[in-house]
């Protein structure tokens, strides 16, 4: 029963990792950009949530109303102001520019909020649980997992059922032809980054309610998101959710064997899948 419990808790944890990964997957899908600053942007989302909850006295979940649009705006400005200039055949500029951004965001957070670990107070939500049989599920992990499903389903719907999604797919397939068809690719990319950072804001707030955070943890969150994307297969959003779940389950099972093994077990699961299925389990994009 303990093992069943570990698997269930790991699955729910996977929801959080899928939220980390969804933004990464979306940006890569639309403009083949890998954002090294993604983890630090998640942490930025958490800190914005913290500021909003303390300044306005809002519940962290309610703070989403402010933080999601704020992060989306940051994303649009970031894309149009800086990142659009880096896109092209050479992979070095986007990589190094987002790496620079990562260092800037991290140190700006350190300067503003100090290195002390912070946590958002979500009141009863943090401790409430539901019992199913002999399993006890925390309400917060269940809610996070539910949000991950809703976010991925909406992104999937947006991608394949709306005109914005059509514009994303068209630009992704062929930028020049899309441009000829009257799409402004700079604007489209801006919108994609805005959407991605909106999702990142949700990820940041769910992270900030679940655990304490400090400015230095961005790199680790980037790696979790990246592993979920690769395990699930590039460009496949539902695959990303499954990737997150596999990562989460590997971690909780690892922690069950020995607490020191939690993170290592997740990384090893990722490397094993990379060795066996280099394109991930359900790849959509063939590079």
């Amino acid at each position, binding site marked *: 029963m303990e093992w069943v419990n570990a698997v269930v808790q790991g699955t729910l944890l996977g929801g959080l990792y899928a939220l980390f990964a969804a933004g990464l997957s979306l940006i890569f899908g639309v403009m083949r*950009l*890998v954002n090294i600053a993604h983890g630090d942007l998640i942490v930025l989302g958490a800190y914005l949530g913290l500021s909003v909850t303390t300044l306005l006295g809002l519940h962290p979940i309610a703070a989403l109303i402010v933080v999601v649009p704020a992060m989306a705006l940051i994303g649009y400005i970031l894309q149009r102001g800086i990142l659009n200039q880096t896109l092209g055949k050479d992979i*070095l500029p986007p990589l190094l*520019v987002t*790496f620079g951004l990562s*260092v800037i965001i991290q*140190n700006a957070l350190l300067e503003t909020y100090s290195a002390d670990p912070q946590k958002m107070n979500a009141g009863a939500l943090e401790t409430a649980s539901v019992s199913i049989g002999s399993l006890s599920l925390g309400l917060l992990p269940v809610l996070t997992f539910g949000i991950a499903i809703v976010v991925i389903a909406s992104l999937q719907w947006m991608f394949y059922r709306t005109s914005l999604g059509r514009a994303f797919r068209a630009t992704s397939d062929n930028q020049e032809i899309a441009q000829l068809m009257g799409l402004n690719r700079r604007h489209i990319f801006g919108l994609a980054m805005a959407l991605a950072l909106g999702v990142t804001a949700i990820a940041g707030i769910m992270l900030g309610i679940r655990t304490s955070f400090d400015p230095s943890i961005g790199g680790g969150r980037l790696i979790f998101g990246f592993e979920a994307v690769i395990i699930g297969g590039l460009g496949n959003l539902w695959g990303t959710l499954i990737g997150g779940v596999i990562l989460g389950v590997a971690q909780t099972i690892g922690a069950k064997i020995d607490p020191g*093994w939690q993170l290592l077990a997740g990384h090893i699961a990722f490397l094993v899948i990379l060795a066996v299925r280099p394109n991930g389990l359900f790849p959509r994009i063939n590079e």
Partner: protein
Amino acid sequence: MSTPNLNVTRTSGVTKIAALLGLVVLIILVAAPYWAGRADMRLMGEIFLYLALASLWNLMAGYAGLVSVGQQAYVGFGGYMLFALTMFGGLHPIAAIVVTGALGAIIAVPVALLIFRLRGAYFAIGTWVIAEVFRLSFAQASALGGGSGSSLPVGIVRSLASSRSGREHLSYWLALASAVIVIAAVYFFLRSRNGLALTAIRDNELAAGSLGIDIWRTKFIVYIVTAALTAMIGALIFLQKLRISPDAAFSVNDWTAFVIFIVVIGGIGTIEGPIIGTLIFFLLRETLADLGTIYLMVLGVVAIVIMLKAPSGIWGLLRSRFDLELFPLSYRVKQNKKG
């Protein structure tokens, strides 16, 4: 195809002068224990080690197109191997550094086989995952102090040289030697057959492949050689620090972020770039270090601006303006004066 009055050469007046000046500077630097103070020598030792790390990273990213953000894996591995080999293997520290290089190459083989499956930017994050795996694994090694790390026993430190100044001189010379060896290795590698292949890959991977260059093999060799040398530099770094812990050994900021900034600012894909970048980096650090986190933000901004406005870095700007090259690598066609 050669016409009698044309000749193809690599050397030029500038490269000859540069070689001569380089030799003079090297002699002055070797003699530093006789003219420099203790603190200056420490700083210069650190500069040489960063120069070596930057030259190696530049060989990978600038020439082989392997952008790694996980070189701290080998720096930390090298440091830990130095501690393990001297503490449990009973090796002399200098012998341990050599063995560390071999071990670095061996561990890099399975790593390369795995992460070479990832393309481009995903390769970069893959290298970071490897570095995390190394960090977490060494944090589990209780014989080496686990998560809190350990110090190098006094006996081992003494085995280097009995007096404090003797040890300081030796570690200065080791750092200087490492920078000279790495730059020389990169230079001769680039002039070799493999280096020619590498330069072709840098300029156009598709064209290089169609000319029959085995791209995978060339990149693989670069990755393994870089890993071995980076591990040896890591061993040297922690021989100077005398204390190691997982967080310090596998720090992404110290061993990768700074190195990337150095190469980008100096000029990626040239041998001269990392040298200039290292000097600028330490100049900035010595003047702005009091600002702490602001200094790092300034560094990030400078790197972004250079990447956007002058992607070939400071050396690239100078080179295109004055047609300069200090290391004779590219070929020039010259007209013979007699003809």
